[in-house]
């Protein structure tokens, strides 16, 4: 069993779509879940390294360590849930080409061991994302896709600058080799590389002040696509961002800069969400806010805090998938996503789902988000970063304003419309909700894994 299958099989499935149009939904689910099982079977056997060509400078290498394995498992899990969710739907078969391609590219991103390969998957993922955005097939969707493309190519340019500078200085593109000899480059070139990488990946990882494009794109895309963007795509880039940062042993002053940017990102996103009138935008802002928290935590260079961040990534991916899919049910009913629709639906099931999702995002017990927040705050106090602790707590209060306003409006006395939800979506949404509660009550297993991932992430180069 080669780790290449995590990339090639989804890619193959995607290209075979035209031939198996009618069965592809089932094939896709089967393949995703099969690969999920394979990924789980790798647990404990990491790290694994695979090369495609053996020319040492330009070899294509794939690395499966406990960190990338965690993300591969997470992505395949989310994608399995996602395709199961759409199992019964006849419409839009072409979207399976794209979702499979997205899956192949994100697992390629986290598995790649050399920076040029990362660039290739970066491009595949971007192009897939542009097309996914345009799937709405109306004016809004197309203009959103074009904007996305312009910003995306900006990111590619900066990434390319970094890659070229690295290659000119070191003559290699293998991350491991770069990591070992990065300090030999002159100070100024080092800075240029780090800065270009920061801008390139920062745009994609949706960090302030490079994330002004995000919310419009989320609004232009459909909720299902947003679920994938929020749960999978942004997570892959964040992992990559910090994977490379720790591989290059960047200076602690850059890391503390990232933490400050994380705080600003969190504050700005939550403040903007406060007066937003559209639920899709609110969810997008909330994703940006969580990314801010992840930046604070991941740049701490401490295993305790980072394990909290990894826990948060897992919980947040499940939560956002659940929330966007639930919002999709509402949008299909009301044909709009303004906050007013929360006053007009009558479904105890959806209220409970939204309540669990929101409370978990706010970090309230007994939900998964609470454990993540507690671990992060605890670790930050251990590092004596009181200001960050205070900032996270105060900004969470702003976050609470709009989430509780949404929850409160579901209880307002207004004419309500019943909502019918089919069995399969209901079961899947309940499963995700149960997972969020379960990890809030019994976090130990996931915390252990997170700790393992955090150790690998920090010590990236030692593997």
């Amino acid at each position, binding site marked *: 069993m080669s780790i290449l299958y995590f990339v090639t099989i989804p890619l193959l499935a995607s290209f075979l779509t035209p031939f198996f149009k009618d069965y592809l939904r089932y094939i896709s689910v089967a393949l995703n879940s099969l690969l999920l099982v394979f990924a789980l079977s790798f647990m404990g056997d990491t790290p694994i390294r695979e090369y495609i060509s053996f020319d040492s400078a330009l070899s294509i290498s794939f690395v499966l360590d406990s960190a990338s394995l965690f993300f591969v498992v997470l992505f395949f899990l989310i994608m399995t849930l996602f395709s199961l969710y759409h199992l019964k739907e006849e419409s839009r078969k072409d979207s399976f080409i794209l979702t499979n391609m997205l899956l192949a590219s994100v697992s390629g991103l986290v598995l790649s061991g050399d920076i040029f390969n990362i660039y290739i998957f970066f491009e595949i993922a971007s192009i897939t994302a542009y097309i996914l955005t345009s799937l709405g097939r109306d004016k809004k969707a197309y203009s959103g896709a074009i904007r996305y493309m312009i910003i995306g190519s900006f990111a590619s340019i900066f990434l390319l600058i970094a890659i070229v500078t690295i290659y000119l200085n070191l003559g290699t593109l293998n991350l491991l080799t770069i990591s070992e000899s990065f300090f030999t480059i002159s100070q100024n070139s080092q800075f240029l590389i780090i800065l270009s990488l920061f801008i390139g990946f920062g745009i994609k990882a949706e960090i302030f*002040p490079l994330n002004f494009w995000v919310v419009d794109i989320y609004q232009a895309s459909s909720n299902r696509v947003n679920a994938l963007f929020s749960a999978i795509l942004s997570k892959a880039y964040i992992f990559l961002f910090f994977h490379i940062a720790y591989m290059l042993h960047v200076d602690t002053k850059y890391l503390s800069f990232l933490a400050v940017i994380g705080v600003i990102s969190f504050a700005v996103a939550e403040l903007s969400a406060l007066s937003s009138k559209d639920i899709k935008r609110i969810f997008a802002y909330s994703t940006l806010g969580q990314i801010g928290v992840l930046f604070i935590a991941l740049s701490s260079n401490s295993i305790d805090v980072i394990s909290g961040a990894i826990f948060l990534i897992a919980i947040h991916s499940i939560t956002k998938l659940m929330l966007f899919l639930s919002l999709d049910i509402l949008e299909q009913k009301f044909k709009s996503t303004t906050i007013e629709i929360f006053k007009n639906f009558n479904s105890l099931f959806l209220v409970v789902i939204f309540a669990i999702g929101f409370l978990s995002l706010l970090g309230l017990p007994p939900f998964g988000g609470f454990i993540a927040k507690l671990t992060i705050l605890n670790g930050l*106090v251990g590092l004596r970063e009181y200001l960050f602790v205070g900032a996270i707590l105060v900004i969470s209060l702003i976050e609470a304003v709009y989430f509780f306003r949404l929850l409160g409006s579901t209880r307002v006395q207004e004419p309500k419309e019943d909502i019918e939800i089919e069995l399969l979506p209901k079961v899947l949404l309940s499963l995700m909700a149960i997972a969020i509660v379960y990890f809030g009550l019994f976090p130990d297993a996931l915390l252990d894994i997170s700790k393992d991932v955090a150790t690998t992430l920090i010590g990236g180069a030692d593997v």
Partner: protein
Amino acid sequence: MFNLSVTPLGNLFFGLTLIVFVSLALVNFASFRGSKASDFKNNSSIFLYTLLFISLGVIFYASDLITLFIGWEVMSWSSYFIITNRAKLKTSQKYILFNLGAGFALLGAVVLIYSFTGTALYSDIAFSKVPTALHFPITLLLLITIFIKSGVMPFHHWVVDTYEEADNLFSSVLSAIISKAGIFLFILMFSQIIGYKFLEPMIFDIVAWLGVITSVIATFKAISQDSMKRLLAYSSIAQLGYIVTILSIFSVSGIEAGLYHTLIHTLVKLLLFVNVASIIYITGKNRFSELGGLIYRYPILFIMLLIGIIGLAGMPPLGGFNSKFLIYTTLLEEKKALLLVAVMFSSASAFLYCFKLIYGIYLGQSTDEVTEHKELPTAYYIPQIIGAVILVVLGLLPSVGIAIFNPTLISLGFEPTAYSSLFELNGGFASFNGGAIMTLFILIFVAILSIAFSLKNKIRERRDRFDISYCGETPNPTVNLHYGYGVGEELRRISFIGVILRNSSKEYWERISTIVKDSSTLIKKLYGLTVQNIALLTLLFFTILLFVGVK
């Protein structure tokens, strides 16, 4: 993950929770019986009440800080959903934001303590490991939590609206039990989490004064209210002010008095809120100016309210007197003369709103001609009777309370208080016999009653409530001359009190909210930029960083 242990302090508070929840469950059960099984609100209410009950149990029996925090937050959000059943969106927002603020302050304190002492278990916390510079911030965070939950000024902003707009029965839970979680945390803070040794006495002088000032201001606010539930809400704030004051004295008698007042306040507010809920259920009205003269139709409710306000005002011969007595003796003993004067001032003024409560609803002229009455389910009497009976028993046997508190005092590391008999309450240098006082009062009461009955036929005929033949003021048909109408208006003319009544902390909190909203609309513009501008900004950002970083 959940560390729970049974402690005397936990038993005490959980006992109060049980009294409140069991008696209200009976009422709710009775009122649910008539409704449809598929009723969305009722079904979710049962679940939420259960969750709230469990979370209170977790708070009171927790043996580590994390468990305490989990219970605390679950309490906040589960009660939020119950409040949204009836309250306006704005009010429930206010409730949850203040209470989440309290929760996050608590979380801050918890992670600070946990990180430095390496443990969250109360029994293992060695507070000396925390650097001295952090003692004050941790104390402050915990105090903010306590103040918000118990509604000590200036954090009381959420209390009144919430109590008024919540379900009538749920207001009694809020006032009787949920506010007591703050008191519980206060006791826990100086007995186990931080410990007396590490607390600045200065801070606690300030806390004591905050409590008293709260009670004085809230008392006057209560007097000037026209809504029954608002009056009770302000009264609740005032009473919790006393408890905070007396607990910050840190002596055996102080804690004893605090616990006693907690017990009394729980019973009294359960009784009063259910009583008011009954009146609102019957008449659908919440304003004194629209009520009056109900004694003729509901004598039992009248007697219950009478017992309630005697307890609330702290008059003999009922239980309320015991705790007031202990508060006064403790303050005298500790030579806190100014505090004593302030407490006495506030409790004396409390008579005014107590009287308003009973006069405005039950006495005076009847408004029957304009009101339709619904039949009250018998279950509404249960909580009131439970509260009244316990208040009477405590009045007769005041030292029963001491017997209940002694295990708690021992577990907190104090000497238990000795008492010679259950009839006798010993307050240090003074004591009284509950049995004797009760007998005396019953005799006087019987005497007055018999005189009243013998004079019954000689009392003048009843007059219309708009009849002001014995008034000195110019009549005006638009002015309601009912007693409950406009009481408290005259207080505004008194210089010191007028200032209190005219101002409120509302403006400050609303200013904060406006600032946040304004900055939100401003910052949001960033996310609506055109793609050209975003690209330009990105380039600009890159260039600036390049110039800063390149040497």
